[in-house]
């Protein structure tokens, strides 16, 4: 996924003189070819995150299209105020490419996880927030970011994610149906979509066909389009590798309220605590009940009507284990 995103940017660099890439001492090997071809358009600004973001803002004001690449906590958290004041407040068209969304880096430890970044980024007006599910969405996110005249934050994984879409011309601004289905819709963003599709394969064996929808653009989110996609289902399950309280789960509660939806809603994701558990990414997903098994089990429970009214529940995955 990361490579699909970066390759799209690098291809654009061959046609656009104004693109400049800043790295915060991250991405070993990622920019090797670029540095060879365009040594004058790349800078490693080292382990100095505040300076990197402010420098990017200044460089952008001089008429460059700037991409800043770093691991998400060092792109968005360490230097949050620089992102807020220097990039977003001034509405500069900078691309912030964040690596290590969700639990990509497990088991590196909590400092390297990005399980609240959507909540943080959503508090920044002017900022488009993209959470692509596969390399095709990542490429589309890159194309969107390149033409945007406002700041764009893209959260990426880098574990060799497979293509989930077949349509290479998708519109990254819309909720996207990954698999058609009926009765129940499973909403997700980012790489957990792969688990949702695996769950769907399991469920298909017993005649259950949930509709799987990826929502790559979480800010601004096309809520009306999503509501339209949910018109013919009664049950909605959301899944994310992110805190439910400030991620898609929170967005859905807003949606329920704003549109007066009366769907049964269950929200899977990470509970609000710091993660001390030691697992790799797959192990973490199983542990928190957001892997294919956890998602399939939740679908079964929802269809068995062992359910809680919309908005009143807090999905706690342990209780949903089969």
């Amino acid at each position, binding site marked *: 996924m990361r490579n699909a995103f970066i390759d799209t940017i690098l291809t654009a660099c061959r046609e656009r003189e104004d693109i*400049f890439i800043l790295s915060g001492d991250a991405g070993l090997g990622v920019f090797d070819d670029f540095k060879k071809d365009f040594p*004058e358009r790349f*800078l490693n*600004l*080292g382990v*100095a995150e*505040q*300076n990197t973001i*402010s*420098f*990017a*803002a*200044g*460089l*952008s*004001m*001089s*008429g*460059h299209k700037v991409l800043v690449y770093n691991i998400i906590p060092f792109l968005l958290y360490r230097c949050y*105020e*620089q992102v807020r*004041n*220097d990039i977003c*407040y*001034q509405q500069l068209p900078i691309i912030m490419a964040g690596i290590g969304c969700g639990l990509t880096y497990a088991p590196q430890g909590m400092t390297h996880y990005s399980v609240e970044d959507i909540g943080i980024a959503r508090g920044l007006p002017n900022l488009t927030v993209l959470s692509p599910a596969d390399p095709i969405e990542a490429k589309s996110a890159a194309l969107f970011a390149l033409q945007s005249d406002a700041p764009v934050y893209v959260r990426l994984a880098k574990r060799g994610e497979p293509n989930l879409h077949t349509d290479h011309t998708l519109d990254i601004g819309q909720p996207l149906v990954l698999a058609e289905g009926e009765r129940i819709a499973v909403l997700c963003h980012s790489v957990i979509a792969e688990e949702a599709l695996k769950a769907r394969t399991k469920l298909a064996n017993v005649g259950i066909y949930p509709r799987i929808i990826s929502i790559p653009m979480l800010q601004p989110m096309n809520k009306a389009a999503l509501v339209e996609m949910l018109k013919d289902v009664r049950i909605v399950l959301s899944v994310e590798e992110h805190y439910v309280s400030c991620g898609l789960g929170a967005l859905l509660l807003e949606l329920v309220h704003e549109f007066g939806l009366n769907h049964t809603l269950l929200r899977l994701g990470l509970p609000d605590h710091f993660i001390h558990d030691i697992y790799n990414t797959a192990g973490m997903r199983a542990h928190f009940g957001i892997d294919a098994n956890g998602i399939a089990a939740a679908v079964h429970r929802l269809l068995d009507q062992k359910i809680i009214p919309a908005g009143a529940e807090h999905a706690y995955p342990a209780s949903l284990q089969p």
Partner: protein
Amino acid sequence: MKPLSDTAKEIRKTIIEMAHRSKSPHVGSSLSCADILTTLYFDTMRLDPWEQRDVFILSKAHAAMALYSTLAHKGIMSRPQIEGYYQNGGTLPAHLDRAPQCGVEVSGGSLGHGFNMGIGLAFGFKRKNQNRKVYALIGDGESQEGSIWEGALFAPKVGADNFTAIMDHNNLQGYGRPTQICCFDPMRDKWEAFGWHTLEVNGHDFEALRCALKEDSQGKPKMIIARTTKGKGVSFMQDQLIWHYYIVTDDHKHQALEELA
């Protein structure tokens, strides 16, 4: 052309009037750097043609009244804009909201941002082969920000020799003296050790400021440590901690304008 000292006096008068009308703080911080801004805008900086102008960034953005006043006297900002400063439904906030067309080049208010944006901007101008210089004014209190030293490490590395930082060293921050609050000195040695062309001048001596600003920086970014007096020009405000935050009353205004007459 008017002597710079006369212009600076007019700029200070406008600062007092703005502070009085608005009841906003930071009048001492604004008076402190008035001579530096006067020298920059009325002597050093190229502002014509506007599209190719040199850029000044007020990184210590709490001294916004000094910038607004200077821009107004230079004819870049209008009288009504100045009159709407810090008013309900007004025109200008107490810290900076970017508006390049009227001289507010970057937003600011949180310390340790403008300095680093200035380095990026200067680097960008060089990359575009534009012969434009960037000046950033930082405070001595602001020099406690980690981001300042991140920028200090990198500006010489990226060859930003068109970037000049000026430190308004009045030795009074919000709640004390920088030289007592932290291990401030030797400040000049610090910047020299970081690879900057470093000068130290009297920040109220126009000729010294002019020379320092014009001096060739030998391929390095430049740091001018300008020794200043907070509240400069108004006797009862000079070097007084309280005038970081105090409000200008009718009596204060009357006396201050008399002294600046």
